[in-house]
């Protein structure tokens, strides 16, 4: 457009009330026609100062807070936090507790990726159909959570030293039935979208991140793996006995939105495999060790991380021998994954920016905490 037609960039606020910002999140984009020349993120609309609140509550009382950071992956958040406290206090977990944690974390990954895949396809404009299909399967996972923990979304299930309750008797048959159905569902979604020319046109080559850029921007999870880096905390730094399970790390080709999409689909398949193995080898015994309610870990610090659905979910806990953490810091994957948003959106169109945002799979509760 240079020379012939004079154009002038103008500012467009995508959000905070926008169908595709997945919550109250705002991108101030400067657009020249449809082309984005600058992007700035505005966040904090959902800031609840959880890190401050946690300093005033006991270690056990903080577990419900972790549910509410990434409300689409509460089990994984619980897990990351209790691992950090266990590392800090030197508490062991019985084998059954570990196996149940793995089952729950992987089911949570499936549920969260269902949401991620569905919302992402919705952002590309597939009018609700993949979302509804994904929700259908996600509901079944949430049914399992309800059966086990009594809650569907904010489960509050993990405890320091194990899990809150043992699995109910009907859990195993219900889970096996779900696991039998899930591969078919993933194939269904794949058949609907992976070969679809419009979907490919919208996602291939959009939001490209080279492996170097992805690393330098501290990205993690499917964002990092989509760029071709084989990094998965479950493999690299196994916790809860992940080394016992046979699974693989899916990685992408060129780091575009489509790669992140297929990585997520494949991760769901791998999660199904892990849950299957964990169920087959579910050990007996207690599900939790006894931990005093007013836990006072020795002074020190611990950084524990898990591979959450959105990436490396870390908890940094500092203790001063008090009943509550001296410092409680969450390394929120979707917050840090956003740091490369400008790199990915500038130069693309407004429609691309939405697709990129969808491919990051943000949860605003986690970004703002």
């Amino acid at each position, binding site marked *: 457009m240079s020379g012939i037609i004079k154009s002038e960039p103008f500012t467009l606020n995508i959000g905070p009330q926008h169908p595709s910002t997945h919550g109250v999140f705002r991108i101030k984009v400067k657009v020249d026609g449809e082309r984005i020349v600058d992007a700035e993120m505005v*966040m*904090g609309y959902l*800031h609840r*100062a959880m*890190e*401050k*609140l946690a*300093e*005033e*509550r*006991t270690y056990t009382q903080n577990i419900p807070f972790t549910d509410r950071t990434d409300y689409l992956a509460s089990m994984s958040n619980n897990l990351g936090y209790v691992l950090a406290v266990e590392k800090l206090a030197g508490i062991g977990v019985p084998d059954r507790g570990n196996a149940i944690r793995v089952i729950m974390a992987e089911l949570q990954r499936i549920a969260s990726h269902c949401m991620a895949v569905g919302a992402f396809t919705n952002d590309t404009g597939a009018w609700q159909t993949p979302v509804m299909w994904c929700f259908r399967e996600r509901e079944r996972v949430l049914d399992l959570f309800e059966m086990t923990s009594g809650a569907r979304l904010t489960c509050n299930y993990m405890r320091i030293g194990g899990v809150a309750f043992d699995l109910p008797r009907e859990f195993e048959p219900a889970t096996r039935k779900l696991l039998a159905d899930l591969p078919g569902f993933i194939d269904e979604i794949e058949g609907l979208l992976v070969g679809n020319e419009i979907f490919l046109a919208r996602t291939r080559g959009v939001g490209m991140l080279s492996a170097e850029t992805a*690393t*330098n*921007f*501290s*990205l*993690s999870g499917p964002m990092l793996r989509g760029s071709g*880096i*084989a*990094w998965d905390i479950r493999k*690299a*730094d*196994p916790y809860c006995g992940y080394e016992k399970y046979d699974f693989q790390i899916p990685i992408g080709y060129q780091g575009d939105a489509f790669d992140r999409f297929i990585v997520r689909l494949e991760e769901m398949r791998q999660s199904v495999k892990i849950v299957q193995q964990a169920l087959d080898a579910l050990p007996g015994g207690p599900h939790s060790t006894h931990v005093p309610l*007013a836990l006072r870990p020795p002074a*020190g*610090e611990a*950084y524990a*991380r898990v591979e959450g659905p959105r990436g*490396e979910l*870390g908890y*940094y806990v*500092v203790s*001063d021998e*008090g*009943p*509550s953490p*001296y*410092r409680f*810091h969450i*390394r929120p994957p979707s*917050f*840090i994954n*956003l*740091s*490369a948003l400008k790199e990915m959106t500038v130069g693309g169109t407004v429609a691309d920016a939405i697709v990129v945002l969808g491919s990051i799979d943000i949860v605003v509760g986690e970004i*703002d*905490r």
Partner: protein
Amino acid sequence: MTRQWTGPEVAAVAERLVPGAVDRSTPAACYLKAEKLVETMAALHAAGETDFVHLTNLCGVDFWDHFEVVYHVQSFVNNAIACIKVDVLDRDRPAVPSVCSVWRGAWMQECETYDLFGIRFEGHPNLHRILLWDGYPGWPLRKDFLSMPGGLQPGLDEFSGTKRREPPPVSVAE
């Protein structure tokens, strides 16, 4: 398993790469001097034996009399993670050099730390309050931030007696 570098290990490598960079080291972490922070981080990022290409976590901690900025850095190829810290002694105008030139992705976490602790990161391309709004009174995650009007603090009476509920030993900033 990921290899966890202990403080002295990191300190030895850092001292070799950039002489005079290390302040002290504890078993958990290596404390770098603020003035040589960026140089040392760049060296640790580039060196093959450390190869800390990924800045995982960056956060601040308030210890009443000083702040610490904590960096967790990791290497994919070597499968190793290390904890590096910097002391920030000046409580009235805390400042640390920004590591954005080493890891560009640090900008958001540095903004967050600035927002909640008031620690300025010098050399940061766009340091602003990322979660709270401009002009928010005080820095919430500081221990002397009284979170409620009248100085009431949330919390639990039955677990009283921790150091944090005592009056702050230093004057309240802002």
